[in-house]
């Protein structure tokens, strides 16, 4: 009789057996990825770590700051704002009429060299309050037309300076080219002409592959409303370096554009005579015009900001490192003390 007594687990054992092959295939493969156990480094910001990191930053940053500040101080810059003084007294109240009139706009300025300026000395013009980044302006150009002689008609993007009144395409088209800066500067030192090299002031890559060698200005500045400089229609665009420089539009409303290079040293206290033709209209929007002569250092032009920023950050880090050290020494705290956990500090108050 007992032999027929069923065991209570027999039924389950049977079903478990049938599940056995399935079980193996279902069991996920073990890997560090699947178990989320990939080795990881876990930076814990211990006081020592923080203090030494701050210390390190200040040690590295302060010298860099000093060096770049010196580099920037080495740069000699002469800035001359001329848009007001170059308007005759009689026109001071209505400068726009002056600039749009046909009167002679020659203006003489004298610049004094404060310190020795080593060659090359870069000559820039600086415009203020001029929105080269205005959407309407910045889009108004045709890159394909500038590069290829064949795509002269590619002027769709150039509106409103796309075609002349009689429907011929303008080369180079667009507002940017049309409003090319047209003040000119002549320099003389002790009544001797000071040569300004205007070659190589634009990017080589622009000359080579953005502006075509066989693209010549056509129908340019032929309209009733003249924007800026005229272009010599026998010189290909790739050699019109003023245009190339101008067409690298500036991102900010205050910008400098390279005009040329003076390839000789200027001695201290030398006086440079500048004869400039004040043609460009910035008066209608109260824009400033400045002439800038500047040398460069290994860090570029005159720029104190970088050095000051490095010094500030370095100094701040040094200060923090110092104060953390003091706090750490005065009131040390054991790492990983659970009594600091919020629910341990004020029980029940969550």
């Amino acid at each position: 009789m007992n032999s027929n007594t069923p065991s209570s687990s027999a039924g389950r054992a049977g079903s478990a057996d049938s599940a056995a092959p399935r079980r193996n295939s279902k069991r996920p493969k073990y890997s560090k990825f699947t178990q989320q156990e990939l080795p990881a480094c876990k930076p814990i910001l211990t006081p020592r770590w923080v203090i030494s990191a701050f210390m390190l930053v200040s040690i590295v940053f302060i010298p860099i700051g000093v060096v770049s500040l010196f580099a920037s101080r080495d740069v000699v810059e002469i800035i001359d704002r001329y848009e007001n003084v170059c308007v005759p007294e009689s026109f001071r109240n209505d400068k726009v009429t002056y600039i749009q009139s046909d009167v002679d706009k020659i203006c003489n300025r004298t610049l004094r060299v404060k310190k020795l300026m080593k060659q090359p000395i870069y000559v820039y013009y600086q415009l203020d309050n001029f929105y080269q980044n205005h959407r309407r302006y910045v889009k108004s150009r045709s890159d394909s037309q500038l590069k290829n002689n064949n795509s002269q008609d590619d002027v769709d993007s150039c509106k409103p300076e796309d075609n002349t009144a009689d429907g011929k395409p303008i080369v180079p088209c667009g507002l940017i080219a049309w409003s090319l800066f047209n003040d000119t500067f002549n320099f003389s030192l002790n009544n001797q002409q000071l040569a300004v090299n205007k070659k190589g002031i634009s990017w080589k890559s622009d000359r080579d592959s953005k502006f075509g060698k066989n693209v010549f200005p056509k129908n340019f500045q032929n309209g009733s409303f003249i924007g800026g400089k005229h272009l010599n229609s026998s010189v290909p665009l790739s050699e019109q370096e003023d245009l190339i420089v101008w067409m690298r539009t500036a991102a900010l409303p205050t910008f400098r554009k390279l005009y040329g290079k003076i390839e000789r040293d200027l001695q201290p206290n030398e006086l440079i005579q500048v004869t400039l033709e004040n043609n460009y209209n910035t008066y209608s929007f109260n824009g400033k015009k400045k002439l800038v002569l500047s040398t460069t250092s290994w860090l570029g032009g005159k720029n104190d900001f970088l050095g000051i920023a490095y010094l500030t950050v370095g100094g701040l880090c040094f200060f923090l490192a110092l104060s953390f050290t003091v706090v750490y020494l005065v009131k040390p705290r054991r790492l990983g003390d659970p009594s600091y956990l919020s629910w341990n500090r004020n029980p029940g108050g969550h």
Partner: protein
Amino acid sequence: MKRYVYINDDESLQELYCDNQISNRKYTVLNFLPKNLWEQFSRFMNQYFLLIACLQLWSLITPVNPASTWGPLIFIFAVSASKEAWDDYNRYLSDKKANEKEVWVVRQGIKKHVQAQDIHVGNIVWLRENDEVPCDLVLIGTSDPQGLCYVETAALDGETDLKTRVIPSACMGIDFELLHKIKGVIECPNPDKDIRRFDANLRLFPPFIDNDVCPLTIKNTILQSCYLRNTEWACGVAVYTGNETKLGMSRGIPEPKLTAMDAMIDKLTGAIFVFQIVVVMVLGIAGNVWKDTEARKQWYVLYPYEGPWYELLVIPLRFELLCSIMIPISIKVSLDLVKSLYAKFIDWDNEMIDQETGIPSHAANTAISEDLGQVEYILTDKTGTLTENRMIFRRCCISGIFYGNESGDALKDVELLNAVAGSSPDVVRFLTVMAICNTVIPVKSKTGAILYKAQSQDEDALVNAAARLHVVYVNKNANILEIRFNGSVIQYEVLETLEFTSDRKRMSVVVKDCQNGKIILLSKGADEAILPYAYAGQQTRTFIEAVEQYAQLGLRTLCLAWRELKEDEYQEWSLMFKEASSTLVDREWRIAEVCQRLEHDFEILGVTAIEDRLQDGVPETIETLRKAGINFWMLTGDKQNTAIQIALSCNFISPEPKGQLLLIDGKTEDEVCRSLERVLLTMRITSSEPKDVAFVVDGWALEIALKHYRKAFTELAILSRTAICCRVTPSQKAQLVELLKSCDYRTLAIGDGGNDVRMIQQADIGVGISGREGLQAARAADYSIGKFRFLKRLILVHGRYSYNRTAFLSQYSFYKSLVICFIQIFFSFISGVSGTSLFNSVSLMAYNVFYTSVPVLVSVLDKDLSEGTIMQHPQILFYCQAGRAFVVALETNSFTILQHLAIWGNLVAFYVINWIFSAVPSSGMYTIMFRLCRQPSYWITMFLIVAAGMG
């Protein structure tokens, strides 16, 4: 509302109902593109991006190349469309396989091989052993002389045991050859998805003698996707075909659950959208004003004095486009990606594999992992969830005598063994009820041992215990049961089975003793469903005491009872029962009513006590999760005392001095109301004391409370961290979940049985335990785990990590979009508010697609704290629950190799991409990068930015 199926009638029904072609496909080749696009564009974010992309086609206002939006947009759409297409193609393939399977069908009186899709309603389908059932059939014949067949319903409800199906009585005994020619009509309801009900009638036409209406139940059907087992052949009439089968109707996509985080992201998106509109308006107005005042003076811009009519709109629209990146296009894709990875991590987790059965955890819903970290209420079932659901018969009380009290195991109690050996009539009757009052099927294995196939663990325990006490249930042959007792075989004929329902809380069988022809009613059930119906004059006090005593020990009790029926009483009742079982409307309720008429004047035989052990690690799990600020509610169908005992033993509530139990009871509205108010009062007073207060409510009081005092009960629910609800029905469980959800709590429901399914589907997160009560709960759930204790890991580790990672990812997505957007906005102030973009198209696209998305994606590997720390200090979870991490710092806390790879790789990629574009003469940024890299000041500045950023 009814369907009449004419059996074997080749002409009339061809057109009326659909054929058996199964189609799970969402799309066809033609409608794929429009339908899929329509679906994708019904989401707000996608509509937004489409609008932006369309606006960009207008070159007057677009700041960048339209490709920078169209590219990612098309990419994202293509990814989700091809995923859909691939899924649909697979569905098509599997449909095709099922549709073209050859089956035997009777056509014009001859058996023919046809494809499954050509089966029509009314056809007779023949199946062989191990065949898959092609459509819903009403059985009319099987190879078994008793008309039985066995089916495996795993595909339908996940239960792996074999179920018995029987042919209707009208078809009993019809010759094998005649089945081809059978004619008749089946009256059945229209297709529905209830796989437990089929209330229909069958009437056969002459020459088949039985002219009566024969009731059909689900027991007479075999449903689509089941397998025929242990039966040589079976045949049936197709009643529901194609997509109208019970399986086909119950398919359908459950409503997607949205996590709290998703809701937050949507809100944030909305807020950013509003902010964006404000920015656009302000800048648009400023732009127009600037244009009218300043731009006229800027002669080089050549603004015309007379613009087109849309002039005023141009600048605002430009800003709209510039600011469109404020809402990150990549966030949905990235989130979907990382969420599926969270789900995979859960699937892969080796520590959540049930060592006993080897079942790994599974995340069926990949979208809601981070909600796990925000759970505030856990509603848990008791049996099978907290306990093992491995029932062992421990004690019993027969006619007032307690057995098994000393040893704790009645099977070893000498007194009981002696009583059995002495054939004490009370004890024998008791054991007989244990052995045959059930739906267990004994199966003889090849070795001669008897295996019991039981659907209920309690019945399994009782039958096995009876067998150990020498009352062995050996065989069931159609309606004849054989019991072997002390060497003699006793046969009983089962006349009726009054099945168990959770409302009646008892089940009975009516059997006829074949020796003396007596008709007996045998019942077993919960004490309150049996004891009140004892015959007048029987002392039930000892039984009540026994029930209470057992419940104190946390044992499950069942009362056994019997009654001898008179022949005519039975006959009279039998007619009513038959009528009730053949009704089509409210059948369940009618049957219950009829059963009530028979189940009274019981002679109570005794009480059984079955032990259900706690699962491993349950108390620890509950304690840990409690510490994490999660409130526990226990919802059980068991009786109050048992529930309280289990609750005590698993740390659910604390014993007296520390804890306090408040009872809500009462039978009438007034009583419940008074009790509820008393409890509320106590609760308010004690809420300041450090005392564990829990309330206990039973199903009856709960019903009244939910109906009439919902407000008070809701207040109670908010005040109380612990609650025990006993004697609750599945729908009440779901109601409680609903109640907590309506108070804005994140709920998690965990259960293992079919009675938990509704609660699991209702809750924010449903967790199913793949336990002994089948897989129903696990299939309905969002997560299925093998053991209750894995819940700790699921919530504390996976839930918390997922939450933190998603928080990081979404914050970062918004952060990076806002950063670049603010740069554009500030730039617009120095570019004449004209809507110029500072960045070119390539940089913008690369910023969104490469630079900022890849390093963020690897943040799925971020672990801010180790798993051990979280397990030790579960309080950390408070931060997730409060949703605080969403506003806390953007930081990565640990760096794995992959993260290093992504970050440094990304840095390299930045330079590579820019160098490549700088090397292409036709692109706008030709040589710029090379120039930049030659400048020492660039490097020095970069160094400064990086160092300052780190600081």
